[in-house]
């Protein structure tokens, strides 16, 4: 269990996947704890377990063993509606490929999670959030296909922030962006951590790592190095 200052406590988490007749340990005995407002980078080569760890923290995967506590709640034990609520209100996901809903415009993409959580005046709040990440009112009416990669990722960040989550989980958020847009996204994420949000980024990008408060370096499913 964590103490009151710690938002996230990960205790000896293992995640195994079946590969043919054998099991592969994508995450193997990982433990750490994080306080609120930290900017965390998870580094490592492809297949080192970064994304799996991120999905475990976001309750998109369940650990094979071990526990993950967020705000003293055992996330790995959640199911059904509680699990949906956790994803809806506690965490916000940002993906490398943005994954905006193509049939919704920028504003509607941000409104969607707000509506799912039953939020009132969602449209106004969504518009404000989009403006905060640099998407003006005119562009808010555009569908994803008519936005640049950087703009789409900013909309995705706004969507992740829609329900004011405590944790932002970003999987290679600058992977598909040029350096200018990548820098802009990094700055936004860094700024979010300064607003008491815990931002955890799985990345190869050294620029992101250099800005992080904590860096976990992973190899073969294990954290081989922690830099604070």
């Amino acid at each position, binding site marked *: 269990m964590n103490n009151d200052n710690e938002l996230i406590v990960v205790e000896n988490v293992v995640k195994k996947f079946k590969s043919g007749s054998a099991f592969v340990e994508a995450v193997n005995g990982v433990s750490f704890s994080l306080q609120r407002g930290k900017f965390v980078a998870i580094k490592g080569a492809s297949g080192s377990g970064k994304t799996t760890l991120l999905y475990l923290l976001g309750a998109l995967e369940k650990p094979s063993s071990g526990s993950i506590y967020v705000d003293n709640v055992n996330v790995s034990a959640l199911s059904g509606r509680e699990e949906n609520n956790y994803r809806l209100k506690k965490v*916000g996901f940002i993906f490398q490929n943005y994954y905006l809903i193509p049939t919704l415009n920028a504003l509607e993409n941000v409104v969607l999670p707000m509506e799912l959580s039953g939020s009132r005046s969602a449209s106004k709040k969504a518009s404000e959030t989009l403006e905060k990440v640099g998407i003006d009112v005119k562009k808010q009416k555009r569908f994803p296909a008519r936005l640049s990669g950087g703009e789409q990722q900013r909309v995705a960040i706004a969507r992740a922030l829609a329900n004011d989550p405590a944790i932002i989980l970003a999987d290679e958020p600058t992977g598909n962006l040029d350096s200018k847009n990548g820098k802009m996204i990094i700055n936004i994420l860094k700024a979010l951590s300064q607003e008491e949000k815990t931002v955890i980024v799985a990345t190869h990008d050294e620029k992101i790592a250099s800005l992080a408060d904590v860096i976990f370096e992973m190899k073969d499913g294990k954290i081989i190095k922690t830099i604070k």
Partner: protein
Amino acid sequence: MLSLIKNSLRSLMRSPLRTIILVLILAVSSALSLVMLTVGGAYQNQLSSISSQIGNTVTVRPAGFFGAMGGGEPLDEAKVNEINKIEHVVSVSKSIQTRYSGDALVSAIQPGTLGNQTGQLPEGTNNERIIQGIAQRVGIQVMGYDTSTLKPELISGVSMEVIDGRNFVLGEDDANIAILGKDLATANNIEVGSKININDTDIEIVGIFDSGQRFGNNAVLMPIKTTERIFNITGVTEAAVTVDDANNEDAVVAEIRKIFDENTADITTSSSTYQRISGSLTNAINTSRLAMIISFIAAGIIIMFSIILMIRQKIKEVGVLKAIGASNFRIGFQFVLETFFMSILGTLIGAILTFPLAQRISSLLFSAGSMISNGNLMGGQGFMARGGFTRIGSINIAVSPEIFVYAILFAIAIAIVSSIIPMFYISKVKPAEVLRYE
């Protein structure tokens, strides 16, 4: 909800070709279903109509007697009254049929070849009268009815309308009154209020009727007791027994047989005729129902696979929705809405197609030449026989505006039925798996 609807419609517009193809498939299959529904309904109505025409009737006549032909003894009226007490009997209509061949009335029908073949010439007709040039005429049918019978059936399937004067009223069972067929009245220059003398009794004509055919219009209708008295008949010559349901006819016949044995009465039922007629129509109804079910299932399967295909194409979208906290129901409902909109459009087009297609498909299902024996054939010199034909092939298929209500119900049903498996499929999607490989 509004955003869900908007998103569903946009999703459909995003792949216009797929949407158009699916809508067309739905239009064809729903048109087929709705046509079959309409045709089946029309056949069912036709069957009901035939059933009501034939009626749930058991006819009891003296053994050896038929219409005004044959012989035998009248049925004992007291025993006929006992039929009323049998379970499932709704009513018993008694009547007496006889012939009048006296001089007070001249028949309106010439015997012709058919009348001469039957040998049913009036009494007193002989070679001498022919030599004297006196015209031979067909005997006049006299029918005695309960005055409670408002529209007496002159012969099976032939009813009458009073076109001048009045009908009998209750309490006139023994009154010296009569209603004449219009041809008979014309042939004898008789009007309402005239009196004629039949078998030494003065009878007042209170009405003139039209039956729509020559044989019926050559008849005299009298109250039953009056007929018994004037023609010196004790008992009745026909008891038409109405049964509550055709399925109970056999049970009623069995009970009647306990009252009248085979040597006393002949009993005929309408059910055998009905079954003969209904057989082919029932087959057509079953065929139309089967076609309706098959086309519905086919539409459901096609739509179901198209939704699964749609979900597979949008699998990442499903994963993202799950990742941001959308429930399985919320995600599935969007696909149901998409299906529903396609179904609504398809079935409404299908409903419109029903109007020109229903009659044509009905003609294919049921040959217009189908004729089934059941009716009545009569004429000539007092000749009456059963065994005519009813044409049931040319059924008019009227498509009612209600078809649009059925179309909407069809659309809802298709959307629900075809969404069950896709909903299950959505519930099994693991967001981590579908989002892992970017």
